[in-house]
């Protein structure tokens, strides 16, 4: 098992490098109260790879994801999506990037209650007035995710697992460069979360989808190609295709 941290500096110009952080630091607060959430992190996420970012609570793993996706701004360093420095983008450009290049999956689903499942899924495409919904892709997605017969229902009429699968479909519909998933299985029971992780794995294998998933669930991490460990805002280890036990060992070691 390899536990060496990634030291190679990712090259944003490299076409296979979908997202990367270079010397990324994020500080909250000022003066004595200042807390460094991520501290000089350099990491790249490659196309078609399913990466888990793991670490104890307060390790900075979520901040890392938020900064990488442009939801939050770095204090110093750079965050790239492809070869674009997200800190140079305004709200309009960031919005366009979110709807076309990125996908998000949250622990608490964040579906729009007034819209049906189908409308929720196509929302990113609809928001872009030029883009058209790829109906066959939508069909394929909803069939795989087993929500095809629930498309006319509103979120309040769906189960938790179904809601999260709608959220997955919404994240995937624009065929984004990368999907950021923040504890996607956090609100699901073990059976539904197992199913969800299988869908995500399938998306990577069948469609070459890039996924960055923040999690503290060792089982979830075991579905990934690569697991990155974060502690006190720094990268402290990395493993490829670890087993659940490998992950648990590493976590024990860290804490």
């Amino acid at each position, binding site marked *: 098992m390899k536990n060496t941290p990634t030291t190679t500096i990712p090259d944003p110009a490299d076409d296979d490098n979908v997202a990367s952080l270079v010397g990324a630091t994020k500080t909250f607060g000022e003066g004595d109260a200042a807390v460094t959430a991520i501290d000089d992190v350099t990491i790249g996420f490659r196309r078609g790879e399913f990466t888990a970012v793991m670490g104890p609570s307060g390790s900075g793993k979520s901040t890392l994801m938020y900064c990488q996706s442009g939801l939050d701004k770095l204090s110093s360093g750079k965050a790239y999506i492809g070869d674009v420095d997200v800190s140079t983008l305004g709200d309009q450009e960031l919005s366009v990037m979110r709807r076309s290049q990125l996908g998000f999956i949250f622990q608490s689903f964040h579906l729009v*209650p*007034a819209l049906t499942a189908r409308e929720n899924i196509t929302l990113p495409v609809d928001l872009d007035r030029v883009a058209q919904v790829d109906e066959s892709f939508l069909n394929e997605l909803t069939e795989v995710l087993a929500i095809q017969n629930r498309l006319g229902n509103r979120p309040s009429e769906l189960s938790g697992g179904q809601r999260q699968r709608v959220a997955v479909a919404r994240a995937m519909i*624009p065929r984004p460069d990368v999907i950021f998933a923040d504890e996607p299985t956090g609100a699901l029971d073990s059976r539904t979360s197992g199913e969800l992780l299988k869908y995500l794995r399938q998306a990577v294998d069948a469609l070459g989808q890039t996924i960055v998933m923040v999690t503290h669930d060792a089982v979830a991490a075991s579905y990934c190609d690569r697991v990155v460990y974060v502690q006190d805002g720094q990268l402290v280890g990395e493993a490829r295709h670890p087993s659940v036990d490998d992950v648990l060992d590493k976590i024990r070691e860290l804490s």
Partner: protein
Amino acid sequence: MLQRTIKLAWYKRNRYALTVVAIGLSVAFIVSTLLLTTSIADVGDPLNQSYAELDAAVSGPSVSAGDGPIAGISAPVPERVVDAINAAGFEAVGFSSPYAQVIDAGGNAGGQVQAAANIAEPWLGSSVLNGFAVVDGAPPSGLGEMALDQTTADGAGLSVGDTVTYVTDRGPQQADLVGIVSFGGANNDPYVSTVLLDASDPLFTVVAGHDYVLVAGDASAAEVTAAVSALGAVNGLTVESGPAWIAGEIEQLNSFLGFFETFLTVFAVIAVVVGMLIVTNTFTVSLAQRTQELALLRLVGTTRRQLMSQVVIEALLLGLAGTALGTGVGLIGVSAMGAFLDVLGLSIERSNAIAYSAIAIGAIVGIGVTVVAAVLPARKATGVAPIEALRTSEVEPPSAGRRRQVLVLITSLLGLAALVFGSAQGDILYAGIGIGVLFLALYLGGEYLIRATARVARPFLSLAGPTGGLASRNLERNAGRTAAAASALMIGVSLISFFTLMAATIGQFIAGDSADAITADYVVQGVGNPPGPVLNDELLIRLESVDGVATVAPTRLTTVTPVTEAEVSRPGPGDGVLGVAMADIDELQAVFDFEVVAGSLADVGGSSVVVDEATAESLSVGVGQPLAVTALAGSVDLQVVAVVASSLPGQPQPAIVGDVELADVVGYTEPATLAYVKATTSQAVLTNAVGIPTIDVLSTDDYVASLGSNLDTILALVYALLAVAVVIALVGIANTVSLAISERVGEIAAVRAAGASRRQIFWSLISEFGLLALVGVVSGVAFAWVAAASFFRALSGGQISYPETDMLSGLLIIVGGMLGGVLAAWLPSRSASRANLLDVLKAE
């Protein structure tokens, strides 16, 4: 418990701030309107006090009752009656109250310009019938000296020692102001501006007789009254005991004030309803948040009882804060309203006493409604199993059930039926009930209206992008919560529309079609209130001698009461009383285009008169038939010789027009108060020729406009009060929007995360709440039109089929209301769209 509740409420202070403001504004509106209503001074006190020694009063038989702005007319009491009572050993004084208007330093009519009467009275010295007492200087003692009541002197900026110009029917006069007087402990005779002159002043020379004679004696009021009644001289006259006469005077003043009180009370009720709607809405709109919050407390072991008491205490705190704020603002507001009334010239005599009942009602609404509004949704929220409420991340907004649908259907049908029946039968009661019930239906069904609007608007909004579609979806979904906000706006808008329609319709009715028929260039008339300054012969001769003046047609106006079984149906003021105009019929034809329907104007003269078509119809008289009326001269038979399409404008509109000699027939002795002038001369030249500050030369257009000006004043007040109601409704909308948005941060974040820009979020929210405002505004305007149409149909017995509709005003109201709604939604929408996406995502 209390401490924790306060802590929880304080934690949510930002969310509750606007709610407290909304409650506060509602309470302020209620308190100030009620305070203004109750502050209308009791006119009884000064009258009772100044006439404490009055034992009896003698007056002539009534010719026509006064109504609203139209003074009633009684036959005069001859001077010999005064002499006879004095000879019988009593003290009797006749009062004629001739017109006298003080001119201020600026050369304008000064003092209580808007007093119901500007009159002169003789100084009665030590007589017990002297209602006035000197408070500064000395009483007038001889020609060239005068005293003024305190209010008039203050209003005109005059003080003892000044030389004062005043206008009477004899023209401008001058006198030295030697004293300031009070009346029965008050600053003035209620609603009267009095110039006190020496009793020997020629102004008091008796022509026809006195308006009334007051009598005092040594015996009791009943004994004096009986003794006076027994005198032969009072035959045919009315003798009342002193207290009865005072009571009658007070009642007459109060009937005018009563209109005003009713008017303000109506607004107070509106204030209460709007306030209740806003407060209720505040709590229903945040039901989902509340459900989860309460569920959490239940989860950690709070009993339902504890929970409810927490909700009640929290509501009490909010209500208390709002009520305190509102009462403070209301106390300031009532002074502002009073000042506004003065500016409008509706000087109502006010006392400074604070009616605690007004504050109590404000507090009941502020605190009571807040508690009820908070408890009802809380009961619903605590009924859910706690874990259930916590598990579902979205609580579906409430939707009115089937029972509500049936109720809306029934009330709509009932309301429409009553409305149609009332307007067809001319029954104002049924029309009123119909309007009320229909309003209830509109309120109950507001939710469905919003849903339907959202659906209709969807394709159009979708054209503007997916966020437009989202806006209509959200509007539809949340209709149950936001309906009350739309209703509050609807009330304000429909009232404004209704009064606009009413003003236009009544204005049109008063001016009538006859306004176009005036061919005169100018109208000369006094600016004072009845009895206004007359146009004396001297002035008329001056006018006629001006170069370029072709015709001066002095017109005398009075009223008579028809002696008939048929009910005279004339909408507007002066119901049942007929206006009479008397002028040289040839001159009149030169300045007014009578459209003769039947008969001939050539036959007019003596008791032969012209009657307008509407009156002829309602009295069932035609050419060649007699028309019996009660006039100053008693019962008089007039002959109808011509029927015209429309008569002279005026208030009341003269339904009967006769030649100069008609005055002798009906017993009218006063000179003309109005003259039509046909001239090529400029207005300035004529004004100069008149040379009396209290007599105006108006262009015909201005004259026609002035006929409705009483209405304009009231309308200005109505608008001011309604504007406050609308502002409160808009604050309510702003609050609804900000609460609705705070409840929806999660879904807004979801749309943002899916790639919506700030601008898209902002416009989505603005379209949603703009559409909500549109429902309120348009339904308000439409409802007002339907209500006005049936109201006027019922009131006029079908004479008015549709209200005078001004599309531009309607459009202005709709656009204004929409702008208000959008503005109210602007800030909360903006801050929601600018909220840090990450903060929101983390918070969820």
